C-alpha cells in the first residue's frame, strides 16, 4: 500500500502538485488527467528527481522521500519514462541486467531472473540484440522488463503505450495486467489511452491541476461526470 499525504510541488510560480492526498493498494492503478495535470511530476517526486516542498509518501511502511534515489531502486521502486529511456547501445539482456545488478538482486539467480523478465515481456528472441536496433513497441517492452526484474514493489509506468498502434498496445496491456500477479508490486499506470486504462486497471485516480478529483473502481471513475469535465476538450479515446 502507498499513501501520499499533503504532497505539494512548486516550480517557481507553478504548483503542479497541490496538497495531493491519495492511497492506493497493490494491483494496477490508473492515474489519468489532462496534459500538464502533474502526472509525470508526481512520478518524478516518487523517483527523487523533484523535491516536494511539503508532504509525505509512505510505501509499504517505508518513508520513500527520505531515501536517496539509488536506494529507492534498491528498495523496489521502478519506473518507465514518457520518452522511452532504455539504453540504446546496450543489448536487451544488458539493459535488464543493469537494473538487476544495481538494485541488489541475488547473484546466484541473476541469469535466470534476467531471462525470466525478458521472456515475461515476450522479447525472449531478442535477448542479445542492441536496443538501438529495436522498434518503438519493443523498446517500450524493454523498459517494462527493466521495471519488473528482481523484486519490484512499486512500478510506475509513464504513458507506456504512447505512439503505439492498437495491436501493440493490446499486447502491452496483457503484460501490464500480469505485473501485480508476477511480482506483487503496486503498479501505477499513467496513460491517455482510456481503453488501455479500462482494460488493465482495477482502480483509477484522476489528477487535475495538481488535485485528485476522483479515485475509485475503474468503471465508477470513468463514468463520473467531473472526470469527463476535466477531460473536456481533450482527446478521449474510449
Amino acid at each position, binding site marked *: 500500500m502507498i499513501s501520499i499525504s499533503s504532497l505539494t510541488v512548486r516550480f517557481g510560480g507553478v504548483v503542479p502538485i497541490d496538497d495531493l492526498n491519495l492511497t492506493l493498494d497493490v494491483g494496477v492503478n490508473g492515474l489519468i488527467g489532462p496534459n500538464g495535470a502533474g502526472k*509525470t511530476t508526481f512520478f518524478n517526486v516518487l523517483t527523487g*528527481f523533484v523535491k516536494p516542498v511539503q508532504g509525505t509518501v509512505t510505501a509499504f511502511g517505508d518513508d520513500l522521500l527520505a531515501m536517496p*534515489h539509488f536506494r529507492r531502486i534498491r528498495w523496489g521502486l521502478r519506473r518507465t519514462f514518457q520518452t522511452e*529511456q532504455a539504453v*540504446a547501445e*546496450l543489448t536487451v539482456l*544488458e539493459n535488464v541486467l*543493469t537494473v538487476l*545488478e544495481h538494485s541488489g538482486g541475488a547473484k546466484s539467480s541473476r541469469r535466470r531472473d534476467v531471462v525470466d523478465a525478458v*521472456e515475461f515481456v515476450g522479447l525472449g528472441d531478442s535477448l542479445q540484440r542492441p536496443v538501438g536496433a529495436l522498434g518503438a513497441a519493443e523498446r517500450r517492452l524493454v523498459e517494462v522488463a527493466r521495471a519488473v526484474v528482481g523484486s519490484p514493489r512499486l512500478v510506475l509506468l509513464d504513458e507506456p503505450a504512447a505512439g503505439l498502434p492498437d495491436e501493440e498496445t493490446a499486447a502491452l496491456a496483457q503484460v501490464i495486467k500480469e505485473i501485480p500477479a508476477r511480482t506483487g508490486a503496486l503498479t501505477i499506470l499513467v496513460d491517455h489511452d482510456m481503453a488501455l486504462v479500462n482494460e488493465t486497471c482495477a482502480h483509477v485516480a484522476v489528477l487535475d491541476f495538481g488535485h485528485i478529483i476522483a479515485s475509485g473502481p475503474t468503471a465508477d471513475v470513468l463514468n463520473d461526470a467531473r472526470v469527463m469535465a476535466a477531460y473536456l476538450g481533450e482527446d478521449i479515446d474510449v
Partner: protein
Amino acid sequence: MSQTADVRLPSLLTAATPQRMIALVVVLAIALFGIPAILSTFWMKIMFEMAAYSLVTLGLGLLVGRVGIYSLCQIPLVAAGAWFSLRVHFLFDESVPFPILLLITGVLTGVLGIIIGLPALRLSGLYLALVTLMAAGAITLLLVSVKFPNGGGGFWGFDTRSASGFNSVPRPGIATGDIAFYRYTVVVVALMFLLAAWHIAGKPGRAWASLRQAEVTAISAGVNTTLYKLWAFALSAAIAGVAGGIIAAGNGVTTNQFPVEQSILLLAVVLLGGAYSLWGAIVAAFFLRVFPQLLDKQLGLPVELLTVLFGVGVLFTLMLQPKGVVQDLTNLGRLIGVKTGMIKPPVAPVVASAAVETAPVAEQVPS
C-alpha cells in the same frame, strides 16, 4: 523458449570472442617482436612513446567514449603520475620495485582524478570541460611550485645537484635496455587495456553506458551516479598516472614536458582515433606521437600544420564517422577479409548505435 537456455551473462569472458583474441595476439606479436626487428633506434624511441601515450588516450577515451564526459585535464595527470612515481621512489630510498611503484603511482593519481571529478557531480558538457581545464592549470602550477621534476631524498626532497629540470626513475632490472623497456611497456599497456575491457564488459561499463545516455536513465536503473562518475575519473586518471610513471622511467621527464594545452590536442586525437573502441586509443596514440614525426622527418612539413590537420580530421570524424578512424580501419579489414574469403560476410547489417548523443544533464528534465 528458443535461445534463452544457454544464454550467458555478459562479462570479459563472453566479450573475448575468437576474433578479438586473434586480433589481440596478432597485435601483441607485432608490437613485441615485429616492430623491434625492423625499426631503427630513433623510431623505436617513437614507438615507445606511442605505447606509453596509448595509455593516456585510453584513459581519456574511457571518459569520453564510455561515460560521455569531456575532460581537458589528462596531460597534467600524466605529469602528476611522473611526479608521484619520482617522489615515491625517493621517499623509500630508491628501493621500491618498479611494478609496485607503478601500482602506487596509479592509485595516487587515481585519487587525484577523483578530486578533479568532483565538479562532474554538478556540471556536465562544456562547463565541466572548462572546469577540468582549470584543474589542469592548477595541477601544472602546483608541479611548478614543487619544482617538478627535481627530487632528492624524502617526499619533498630537493636535490641542488640536479636542479637542471630533468629527472628519471630507474628502469626495472629485467628491462634496462631501450628495446627491453619498450617490450616491458607493451606488456603494461596490454594489462591496462585488459583492466579497461574488464570494466567495460562488467557492471561499471553498463552503469557508464546508462550515464552516457542520460543521467535519469542511470538513476532509474539504481546506478549510484556519484560513485560511478568518480570511479570513471579515478580509473582514467590512474591509467594516465601509470603512463607518467612509465615515461619517467623510459625517457625521464623535464619541467615543461606536459603543457596544459596539449590536453586539447589529446581530446582531438581521441575523437579522431575513435573513442568508442579500445583499439581507437592506439590509433589516437599513433596520431599523437608517430604522425608528427612522419610529417617532420619523412615529408619535411612544419609540425604546426598538425593542429590544422587534426582540426580538419575531427570535423570529418564528427560529420562522417563518429566512431573514428578505428572504425574505418575495421571496415577496411572486414572488406579485405570478405574479398579474400578469410571471413564470412556479415548476415545482418551491424547496427550503428555508438553515436547516441546525449544532452547535458541540465537539459534532461525527466519527462
